[in-house]
């Protein structure tokens, strides 16, 4: 079944029940439950799941769910509900039409607001076993005719259906979810901020398709089966670091105290500096890895410090968001408010780094405070073996630096 077929079905349902809206004091009671939701992009239907319960709710993409910052009614519109995503300065606003929700997803860019039609009906999307023909690793070239750039596409079969990701020089695009049948596939990633979809069809030995971003952007790609030879430039070669002196920093923590590289807690320690943002999906995937490293090596002399680049630049607003992030992952190392985020790999956000900085970027300092290694980006669990290899590399790096002595 294609996405368009599914979409037509859902629209028919919405149209058939468009008469009496749920008339409650507050639409939140009427929307409680599980929803199969979709954004209508120019290139097809991007599917995700919603679970709503009063003032709370989560948005789910593949096996990963994240909470809305608030679920509210709308004063003067008893049939409307707003699903707020404060971390991303975005929201879904929808009307209850019988047993459907119809509305818009909205975020704000530098050129004005961007809206994408949204709809949902009750229930869950079926998990269909994906066709085996496309499963595996593909070396892709995006935009081959106008401006070629390399990517790797991973497609995997799971109990939830097709899952996978796209990997660029600086990291992956998070977990995608969808299905694959008869030589074609579609899968999507929507976390409240990034609106991505990948569709493709097998043409002989070549995979041809389109990467969709936002409402209208469509970037063509071609891909061939990976031969195992490197197709991407390793992230560690993308970022250069100044290693002539100790890496220094001084920023306020989310608790309001100043934290500096001169503080006693970092003296003679191996230190990991993690540059992140709560708005960055890949950072949500690297956070558990940082927590695990800290638990494993803290007693042997590892310290970690997270530097958050947030959305507003207002310490009260950003501090609250980062504290929520800290609590979500059970982070016990300090998190600092380092600035306003870039959102891309193009930021020049640290004094002793050069090159495009990805979110997250992980910087390893030896016991003298000098940069010994920089890893831009993070291979999340969606990348499978690349994820495992990266975690192993992080552990070996930390153990090597700890073993250097003082």
């Amino acid at each position: 079944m294609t996405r368009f077929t599914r979409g037509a079905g859902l629209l028919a349902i919405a149209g058939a029940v468009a008469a009496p809206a749920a008339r409650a004091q507050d639409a939140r009671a009427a929307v409680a439950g599980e929803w199969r939701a979709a954004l209508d992009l120019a290139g097809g239907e991007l599917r995700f799941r919603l679970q709503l319960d009063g003032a709370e709710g989560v948005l789910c993409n593949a096996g990963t769910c994240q909470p809305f910052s608030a679920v509210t009614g709308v004063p003067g519109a008893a049939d409307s509900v707003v699903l707020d995503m404060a971390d991303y300065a975005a929201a879904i606003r929808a009307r209850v039409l019988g047993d459907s929700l119809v509305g818009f997803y909205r975020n704000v860019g530098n050129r004005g607001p961007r809206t994408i039609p949204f709809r949902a009906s009750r229930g869950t999307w079926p998990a269909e076993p994906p066709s085996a023909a496309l499963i595996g690793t593909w070396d892709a070239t995006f935009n081959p005719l106008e401006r070629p750039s390399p990517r790797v596409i991973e497609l995997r079969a799971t109990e939830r259906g097709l899952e996978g990701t796209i990997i660029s020089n600086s990291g992956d695009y998070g977990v995608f979810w969808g299905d694959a049948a008869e030589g074609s596939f579609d899968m999507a990633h929507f976390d409240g901020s990034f609106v991505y979809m990948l569709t493709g069809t097998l043409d002989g030995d070549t995979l041809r398709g389109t990467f969709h971003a936002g409402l209208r952007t469509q970037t063509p790609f071609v891909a061939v089966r990976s031969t195992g030879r490197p197709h991407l430039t390793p992230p560690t070669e993308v970022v250069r670091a100044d290693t002539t002196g100790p890496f220094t920093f001084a920023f306020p923590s989310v608790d309001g105290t100043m934290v500096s590289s001169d503080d006693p807690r970092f003296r003679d320690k191996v230190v990991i500096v993690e540059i992140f943002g709560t708005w960055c999906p890949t950072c949500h995937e690297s956070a558990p890895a940082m927590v695990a490293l800290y638990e494993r090596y803290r007693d042997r002399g590892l310290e970690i410090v997270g530097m958050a680049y947030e959305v507003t630049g207002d310490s009260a607003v950003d501090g609250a968001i980062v504290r929520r992030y800290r609590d979500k992952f059970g982070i016990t190392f300090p998190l600092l408010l380092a600035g306003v985020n870039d959102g891309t790999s193009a930021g020049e956000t640290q004094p002793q780094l050069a090159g495009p900085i990805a979110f997250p970027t992980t910087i390893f300092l030896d016991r003298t405070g000098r940069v010994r290694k920089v890893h831009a980006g993070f291979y999340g669990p969606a990348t499978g073996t690349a994820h495992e290899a990266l975690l192993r590399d992080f552990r070996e790096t930390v153990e090597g630096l700890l073993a250097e002595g003082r």
Partner: protein
Amino acid sequence: MRFPALILLLPTVAVAQAPPELAAERADFARWLQTAPGSPFAAIYHQPFADDLVFGPGGEPGLEGLPSATLSQGLLRLSLESADGSRGVPRNRDVSLGAEWRLRVTGDRGRSVVTVFGPVREPKIPGWYAYDSTVVVEGTLEPPPKRASRRMLGLDGVEVEGSHAGTWVGHVADQDVRLTVYRMPEPGTAEADLMIFFRDATNGRGTYPAGRFLALRPQGGNRYRADFNRARNPFCAYNGIFPCPAQWPGNAIDSAVEAGERYLSP
């Protein structure tokens, strides 16, 4: 009888006929223009950035009234020095300059633009022609003869590397038209619209003299929909601080496309 004639000359801001989706989009855009901290109406400064920019007394003309600070392009990064210390400045995102002032650095290194925002000043409700279903046109995109890209101004006055995506061929306002299309990235995102910057017979007679932008919507294959009801002004139409893009050669429609955003002159 002068009174009825005057009524005919008033700008039409009819949005009632527009489909609900377009009406909501227009209302959202109007609200953003009038209230958003990053609205073009809030911009007080928009200039190419070289190495240093000084805010506050004795600083850059136009920025003397801001809190004292210096924006610098160092060897490795952009930084902002102020009484609160030094901090890194990311690109494409707004940074607070204290009080009501915000700073945004856009574009690549060596070709950066600094925009400074204050309170939204004298915002105008944008005007639109009445919705016209006949200018929602599906056409084809002919690929370019060879790969080409060039630096060009986006609708926000920021220079980007646009890649030539081809020629859109369709029938608009009783005329067969061929319009050049560039894929123009939106800095800080993975998005890149297929854009047309066009002129038509309404320019200076209801619409902005420099022309208007239109983003194509893919319809599958090489089919692309141009909805001229969604033609929008470059930021220079709202605020003279923003530079206007140069006309794209050949992108002139002889007839009047009375659809999309109008120009309500100051």
